[in-house]
């Protein structure tokens, strides 16, 4: 048993889980081209969920704050990006890749900017008065989510909004029998870039070191001379911006969005941070990839089980590792 466990750890340990999941799915699906398409879709979906989940995981880890309003940033990010893309319709539909890229870059920047500003205001007005009080956190952030959804309905109306994809991301990459949507590759690349940037910040900078230490023991960080509450504002604002970027990318993925886009994603986001382990970026990535892959594989193999699959995945992982796959050390 020990030798099996050592072998598992030597080859990457729990980091291998998404790979194992993909191998099992390959055996069940049978068709390589279908498997590649589903795998790329799952990875892209996972990366977008990672963007939405990573900030929430750090926020909970650092300050024990349960923010159910996090998905409001996802919703606003999606709608703001959709509005920017609609306003730049000429660039979105142009044959120039440069103009296409500029349009999507501006849409993502607008969503991120909203996340930064609204995240700061949200933390100051909604979160700060309820530090260390989980019940009030849940109530007030749920209330804020409802208000945010109503605001979206008031601004953008109740009808679903179509989200145009930039021209260069509308096609598919065909390799043999395999067809891969370009937007999915783009979403995967953007999520990967965000993960690498976050990893570098957390592991190569003093601020990152403080965040990692604060997630473990915020009292001790303060006893070493640092204001954890000020650090928390920064993390909260960054997490809100990432959620808004995730929402912007998800809007392009879905191509038709409603005011409920955020609250629909919230369940998946919570599953991801529970699976991954609270306060851990690596855990959020692992959880997001597994949820993305599982969702796509099961939707193909047993469509009726699609909704339940992630819940079952969470239950199995919690039975195996009650604190998630890679929780921050507490």
């Amino acid at each position: 048993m020990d030798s099996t466990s050592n072998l598992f750890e030597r080859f990457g340990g729990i980091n291998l889980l998404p790979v194992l999941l993909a191998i099992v799915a390959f055996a069940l699906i049978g068709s390589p081209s279908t498997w590649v398409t589903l795998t790329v879709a799952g990875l892209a979906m996972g990366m977008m969920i990672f963007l939405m989940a990573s900030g929430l995981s750090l926020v909970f880890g650092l300050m024990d704050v349960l923010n159910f309003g996090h998905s409001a940033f996802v919703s606003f990010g999606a709608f703001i990006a959709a509005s920017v893309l609609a306003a730049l319709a000429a660039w979105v539909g142009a044959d120039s890749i440069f103009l296409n890229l500029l349009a999507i870059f501006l849409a993502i920047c607008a969503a991120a900017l909203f996340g930064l500003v609204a995240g700061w205001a949200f933390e100051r007005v909604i979160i700060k008065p309820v530090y260390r009080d989980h019940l009030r956190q849940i109530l007030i952030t749920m209330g804020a989510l409802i208000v945010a959804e109503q605001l979206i309905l008031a601004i953008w109306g109740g009808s679903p909004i179509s989200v145009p994809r930039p021209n260069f991301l509308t096609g598919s990459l065909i390799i043999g029998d395999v067809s891969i949507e370009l937007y999915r590759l783009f979403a995967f690349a953007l999520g990967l870039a965000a993960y690498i940037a976050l990893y570098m910040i957390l592991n190569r900078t003093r601020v990152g070191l403080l965040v990692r230490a604060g997630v473990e023991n915020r009292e001790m960080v303060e006893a070493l001379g640092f204001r954890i509450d000020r650090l928390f504002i920064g993390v909260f604002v960054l997490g809100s911006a990432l959620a808004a970027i995730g929402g912007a990318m998800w809007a392009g993925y879905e191509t038709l969005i409603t005011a409920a886009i955020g609250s629909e994603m919230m369940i998946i986001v919570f599953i991801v941070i529970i699976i991954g382990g609270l306060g851990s970026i690596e855990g959020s990535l692992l959880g997001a990839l597994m949820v993305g892959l599982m969702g796509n594989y099961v939707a193909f193999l047993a469509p009726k089980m699609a909704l339940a699959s992630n819940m079952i995945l969470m239950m199995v992982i919690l039975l195996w590792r009650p604190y998630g796959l890679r929780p921050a050390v507490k």
Partner: protein
Amino acid sequence: MTAPILELDGISTDIAQYHILHGVSLSVPEGGVHVLLGRNGAGKTTTLRTIMGLWKAREGAIRFRGDDIAHLHTSEISRKGIAFVPENMGIFGGLTVEENMRLATNDGSFDRERLGRIYTLFPALEKFWTKSAWSLSGGQKQMLAIARAIIERRDLILIDEPTKGLAPAIILNMVDAFREIARETTILLVEQNFLFAKSLGQTVAVIDDGRIAHTGNMADLVEDTVLQTKLLSLSLDAHQ
């Protein structure tokens, strides 16, 4: 007797609905090791945490070099030159030994000479420098917690029961290390282990039920076995 570096004047601290400290007054002279003794639940840890601002005093004053620090934020108290080694050591297990130490530096860089002295005091830290702190043994974690408190020059170090759960051989090493550290700074040591405390302490205060029951020189307490029996069995007498 040198001028006090730290004075507690009538400190009362509550935790939720419980009154833990009842007007604690204590004076810590500058330099050397000073010991706060007491049984479990007597209020030793609460006293240290109140000094650090981790729990706020309901009333009373805490003066550090004459300035009242009772209302300051913990981080501001730390930046005044007070280091804290909590009972649970406060090690960041997910960080490496180096990262734990780097966090305690003023600007993220090490004074090589100072680091060299720490390696001499605690050779295990050099050996495990790049390892995760959670992989250290209990004694090594305690060494790291103390090393972190002295990686920069501090005026006062508050240490909460450093010998708890440690093997006798490690405690002996700890005595030597504390003597070395006390050459340049003041240590306020909370202990239950009287043998360890008496080998280091210059002054001693005994706390019981949130009140200071005795203050004086450690040498006097060591000499006076009747007083020792009275003070150190205080808790048993009071609770039987």
